[in-house]
């Protein structure tokens, strides 16, 4: 067994040449950054789309100079048509859910820091890792290509409910080639996500360094691990569903299309399928997906709150257990998206019970975050500010879910702005806050310099979306011009802070660190400093 592990050391040498070093790199740190920047691109596009959505909603006949050049059909003369609005909506959702929320916190930060935090040289399967990034990249390229299709991008929303998404261009503009490309893009994304998830699980299980018991792992690793399990199980289902939808669209099958449909006076030659089947398959993926988006943010928040409270995380075991509980329950609640779908009302009741149950581990997390702050010695770094913001947002967003989990109340609120507000609060803004927190926390490790903190910027970033560009500017400015950071500027305890910034190619200089403590030994009474690193063999007497 020990031999197996020794095999892992120096499996690959530092690559030479630009392409192998930066483009088709096998280094988890490079791939992590690639994922991060892919998500950054997607989030900028997605954000611009959301601005257009807002503009169309408030000033329907507003003329946007130049938009007609980009989309002559969707915005003739620069004025957006109703169908263009739906395209924007569809692509905003798809980009944000898949290529931002699934990509940055998990594949971006996770790739970079999972091996570092568990004391490994790299992920378990570096080649597979590279392959999953480029698969994801192709998925994004295919999705963005729908902008340039004659009929315009798809208009059936990010959930792509059939029959609208299944019957082809009779159902409206964008339902031809645009929708085909959407399905293909998502199927490709599924493959990338599956390969990535497989890699994360194998890495977490197999490559922990000596002494890194599961219960000593930073909570970020727990979050990435649980997220990967969710990804492995849920994207497999979505992939199957996409195959069936594509068959319906191009193969003439009728999995999701019942007989007797008349779309725009045209009798549709399908028969025998069920639109609800898609909803079941989609939400079986879709609800775990919500947690795929938010769990890494929870992990990052826990990690940072503990570090900057200079206190151990409150109830580590419960925190890890609640991550697993949320993960498990997330597979039992998909039906709460379908209370009004025509599904049997009896199953609606069952799904509602499970959905309420998922509120319990979520509540535990909130209370434990507050417990971590309690009696701490709070340092208000940028990362800390975003983590506190995360907690506040999660409380608000989470509580609004209590309404939607009750079928009778949901039948009133379903598909209204209440729901839009709910999920934007939780997996939109809170998850993005998690990403901001991670970026500020780890930036000095990734690219040496510290991002300068400007309170003004932080507050304005909270208030307005446009301020995000200040963030982008700051990020790139700091990348090239910023001050150098030391190895452990935050006085944090986990293993990534034991290596130089940026970490060398093989992370730990060809040796495995040895872990003696859990990840949150802050403020230990009697210790020399107010933190004890995981690889420090110092004795902890207090408990």
């Amino acid at each position, binding site marked *: 067994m020990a031999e*197996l592990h020794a095999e892992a050391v120096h499996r690959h040498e530092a690559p030479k040449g630009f392409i192998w070093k930066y483009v088709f790199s096998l280094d988890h740190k490079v791939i992590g950054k690639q994922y991060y920047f892919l998500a950054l691109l997607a989030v900028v596009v997605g954000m611009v789309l959301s601005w257009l959505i807002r503009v169309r909603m408030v000033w329907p006949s507003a003329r946007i100079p130049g938009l007609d050049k980009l989309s002559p059909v969707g915005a003739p003369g620069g004025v957006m048509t109703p169908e263009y609005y739906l395209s924007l909506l569809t692509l905003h959702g798809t980009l944000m859910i898949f290529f931002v929320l699934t990509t940055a916190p998990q594949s971006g930060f996770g790739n970079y820091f999972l091996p570092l935090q568990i004391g490994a040289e790299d992920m378990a399967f570096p080649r597979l890792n590279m392959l999953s990034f480029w698969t994801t990249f192709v998925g994004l390229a295919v999705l963005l290509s729908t902008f340039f299709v004659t009929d315009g991008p798809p208009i059936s929303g990010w959930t792509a409910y059939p029959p609208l998404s299944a019957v082809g261009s009779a159902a409206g503009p964008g339902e031809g080639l645009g929708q085909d490309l959407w399905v293909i893009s998502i199927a490709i994304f599924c493959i990338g996500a599956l390969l990535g998830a497989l890699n994360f699980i194998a890495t977490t299980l197999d490559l922990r360094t000596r002494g890194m018991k599961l219960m000593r792992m930073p909570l970020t690793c727990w979050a990435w691990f649980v997220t990967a399990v969710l990804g492995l199980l849920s994207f497999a289902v979505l992939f199957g*569903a996409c*195959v069936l939808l594509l068959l319906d669209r191009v193969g003439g099958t009728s*999995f999701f299309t019942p007989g007797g449909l008349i779309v725009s006076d045209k009798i549709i030659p399908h028969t*025998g399928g069920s639109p609800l*089947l898609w909803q*079941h398959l989609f939400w079986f993926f879709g609800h775990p997906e919500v947690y795929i988006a938010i769990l890494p943010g929870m992990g990052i928040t826990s990690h940072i709150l503990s570090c900057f409270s200079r206190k151990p995380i409150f109830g580590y075991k419960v925190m890890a257990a609640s991550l697993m509980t949320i993960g498990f329950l997330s597979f039992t609640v998909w039906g709460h998206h379908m209370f009004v779908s025509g599904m049997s009302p009896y199953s609606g009741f069952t799904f509602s019970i499970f959905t309420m149950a998922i509120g319990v581990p979520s509540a535990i997390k909130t209370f434990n975050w507050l417990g971590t702050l309690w009696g701490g010695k709070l340092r208000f770094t940028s990362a800390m500010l975003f983590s506190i913001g995360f907690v506040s947002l999660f409380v608000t967003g989470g509580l609004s879910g209590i309404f939607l989990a009750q079928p009778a109340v949901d039948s009133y609120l379903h598909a209204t702005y209440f729901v839009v507000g709910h999920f934007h609060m939780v997996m939109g803004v809170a998850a993005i806050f998690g990403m901001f927190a991670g970026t500020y926390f780890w930036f000095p490790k990734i690219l040496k310099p510290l991002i300068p903190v400007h309170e003004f910027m932080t507050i304005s970033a909270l208030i307005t979306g446009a301020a995000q560009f200040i963030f982008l500017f700051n990020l790139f400015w700091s990348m090239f011009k910023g001050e150098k950071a030391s190895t452990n500027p935050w006085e944090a305890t986990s293993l990534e802070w034991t290596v130089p910034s940026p970490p060398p190619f093989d992370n730990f200089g060809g040796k495995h660190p040895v872990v003696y403590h859990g990840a949150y030994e802050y403020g230990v009474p009697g210790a020399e400093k107010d933190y004890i*690193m995981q690889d420090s063999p110092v004795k902890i007497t207090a408990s």
Partner: protein
Amino acid sequence: MASREAMRVPAAGVNEAPATESVWSGGVSPYAVSSKKLGMWLFIVSDAITFSALLMAYSYVRVASAHWPMPFEWPSILNATVMTGVLLSSSLTMVMAVRAAKMANRKAAVGWLLATMLGGIAFDVLHLREWGGLIEEGVRLFKNPWGTPLFGASFFGLTGLHMTHVTVGVVYLGVVAAGFAKSKFTSDDVEVSGLYWHFVDLVWMFIFPLVYLMSAKQA
């Protein structure tokens, strides 16, 4: 940093020693298998779920359809049974290949691998022949002569996905055989490919009764 130095300090006089009392304490693979094998297991879990999704969809539309065709007469069932036999035998030859590989008998292992590939190819050929027959009878993805069009859709969808797996498997085994012959791959790689092959075989054991036996013509 001091802690970086500490990394190299032996763990003497330490209260909480880096325990190796449990396989979960880090530094070893808890399942006592190589990461590659674990990866293949994880792939199988995920792939099994994709197949389950399709089988779920198949059951869903079958239950929801009033008249599900049951057209398979005994020659079809016989053909499918022979296919099942071929696939099962190829699992056996795969076991032999893994055994030979573990015993470092490269020649025998490659031979058994080739036999397994042959089994896979034979399965594909028999299957395609059957597809041809059905297509000739008028079965398409979107229609068939007997009843609900979803029969053809789910038949071709499920068996098509499985056939893709068999075909990919044959190529995969070929790569492994070639690599193993040249000592580029270890016996572990042969074993991992064996896992995949057995999985493909196992999936067929679900498809065979669900798609064929349950659609056999009732006398």
